[in-house]
């Protein structure tokens, strides 16, 4: 089989790494990269932190420097939208009417911020955060002394809350669940995050939802389910992501809240692959089918999809790795902690630096903690090597993890 043209739909981190990898692997054919933004591929983590606050310029987020991107000799189509896949004819149609023939198609279409459907959800001053334009628009509204209401106590919400608080805003976070980041961390870490934010003066309302937003004499007003009103000037809605899988679904590809792929990143059509936030696959570390919305997965699955498209055997099963920066805390998570795991704590959980290990029998399957990057890096090795460990040694800060 000769592959002459590879088309990548989606110019984000996964798409950018796919393009980079095709060239790094020596592919000499035509590479078309279709992005719906004006920007070449960039990393999204700074959008809720340094770029949002204005401390870093958007240029710092790009995957490649301009000359390195040019050197890839990719046909880059910014501000372009793919509208349909003809999987039989192997053609991709664009909104401007052009049809592109492909040998392999890599879908890196990512996701979009979920919006609220409550009254007032579209009022000026109500923001979501997904791309550089969103960050510029929200960033301009982060003004000392003004009031920010964050709807959703997940990662985006908490990071924006921290950035806004550091800017001197009054910040309230409203979360519908009974604790912060309920979907992704155990209760002890939710408590830790709550304490962290409250100690920095963020107001947190748990088990509360916003029923309506309205314009008020002085800014905006949010009505909670219990009838209380919260006044604010700006609202950030951080209630999750919707996978952009419409293109794939319309083409008849198997989808389940995203494009279903195997560990070789192949969809139900052998010539169409998917990677990044839009891809659903069976993670062996999680033991279930899932999307992995993370910086790491966007990069690693983008790389894996490109190699797979070129006929290389890949097995995309990275140990999930996630981090978040809030105030003076860098929290990292390796693996997928679950309620059935035995928990071992190293260090003081009431302090700002400790590690929680999650054990399945005699080996560590997940680890997390604030301000412990180095210990966690050793924990990663324990997890990946399935090293047999003694819980007492893990908990003993006098025992170097490097020696286990």
């Amino acid at each position, binding site marked *: 089989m000769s592959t002459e043209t590879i088309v990548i739909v989606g110019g984000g981190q996964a798409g950018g*790494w796919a393009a980079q990898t095709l060239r790094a692997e020596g592919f000499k054919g035509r590479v078309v990269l279709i992005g719906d933004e004006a920007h070449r591929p960039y990393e999204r983590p700074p959008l809720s932190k340094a770029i949002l606050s204005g401390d870093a310029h958007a240029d710092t987020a790009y995957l490649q420097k301009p000359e390195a991107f040019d050197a890839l000799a990719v046909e880059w189509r910014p501000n372009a939208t793919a509208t349909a896949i003809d999987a039989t004819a192997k053609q991709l149609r664009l909104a401007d009417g052009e049809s592109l023939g492909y040998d392999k198609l890599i879908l890196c279409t990512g996701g979009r911020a979920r919006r609220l459907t409550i009254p007032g959800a579209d009022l000026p001053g109500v923001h979501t955060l997904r791309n550089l334009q969103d960050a510029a628009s929200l960033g301009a509204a982060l003004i000392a002394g003004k009031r920010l209401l964050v709807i959703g106590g997940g990662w985006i919400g908490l990071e924006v809350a921290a950035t806004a608080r550091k800017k001197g805003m009054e910040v309230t976070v409203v979360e519908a669940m009974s604790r912060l980041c309920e979907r992704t961390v155990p209760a002890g870490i939710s408590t830790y995050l709550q304490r962290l934010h409250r100690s920095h003066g963020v107001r947190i309302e748990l088990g509360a939802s916003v029923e309506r937003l309205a314009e008020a004499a002085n800014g905006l007003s949010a009505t909670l389910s219990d009838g209380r009103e919260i006044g604010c000037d700006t609202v950030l809605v951080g209630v999750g992501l919707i996978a952009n899988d419409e293109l794939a679904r319309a083409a008849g590809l198997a989808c389940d809240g995203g494009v279903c792929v195997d560990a070789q990143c192949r969809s139900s059509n052998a010539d169409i692959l998917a990677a990044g936030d839009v891809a659903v696959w069976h993670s062996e570390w999680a033991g279930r089918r899932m999307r992995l919305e993370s910086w790491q997965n966007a990069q690693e699955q983008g790389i894996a999809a490109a190699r797979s498209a070129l006929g290389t055997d890949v097995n995309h099963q990275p140990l999930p790795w996630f981090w978040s920066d809030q105030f003076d805390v860098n929290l990292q998570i390796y693996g997928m902690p679950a309620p059935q795991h035995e928990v071992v704590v190293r260090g003081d959980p009431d302090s700002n630096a400790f590690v929680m290990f999650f054990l399945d029998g005699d080996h560590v399957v997940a680890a997390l903690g604030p301000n412990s990057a180095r210990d966690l*890096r050793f924990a990663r090795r324990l997890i990946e090597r399935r090293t047999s460990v003694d819980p007492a040694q893990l908990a003993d800060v006098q025992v170097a993890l490097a020696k286990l």
Partner: protein
Amino acid sequence: MSDSQWTDAAPLDGVPTDDVIGVNVEGRDIALYNVEGEIYATDNICTHGHARLCEGFLEGHEIECPLHQGRFDVRNGAPMCAPVTEAIRSYPVKIEAGRVFLSFA
């Protein structure tokens, strides 16, 4: 090469075996590595995310950035894995009288 090109960076026994340290040499932030007794030197700031490599993870001849886990070969600064794509500058090293000397020429 004249001796004046070599700059004293650190005592040799200040670079523990199979470890990395950060040193300031004439205003430059430098990482010194000791791989099984051989000393190597590179710039200390990662070419990707502005983290300090001396706080990273040295495994064999590869230093892993503590921020995003990009890797460089400490012998020549070559980028070894994503997200780093740009080499980090490496420097010639010589050991004399128990001291580590670098050449910035």
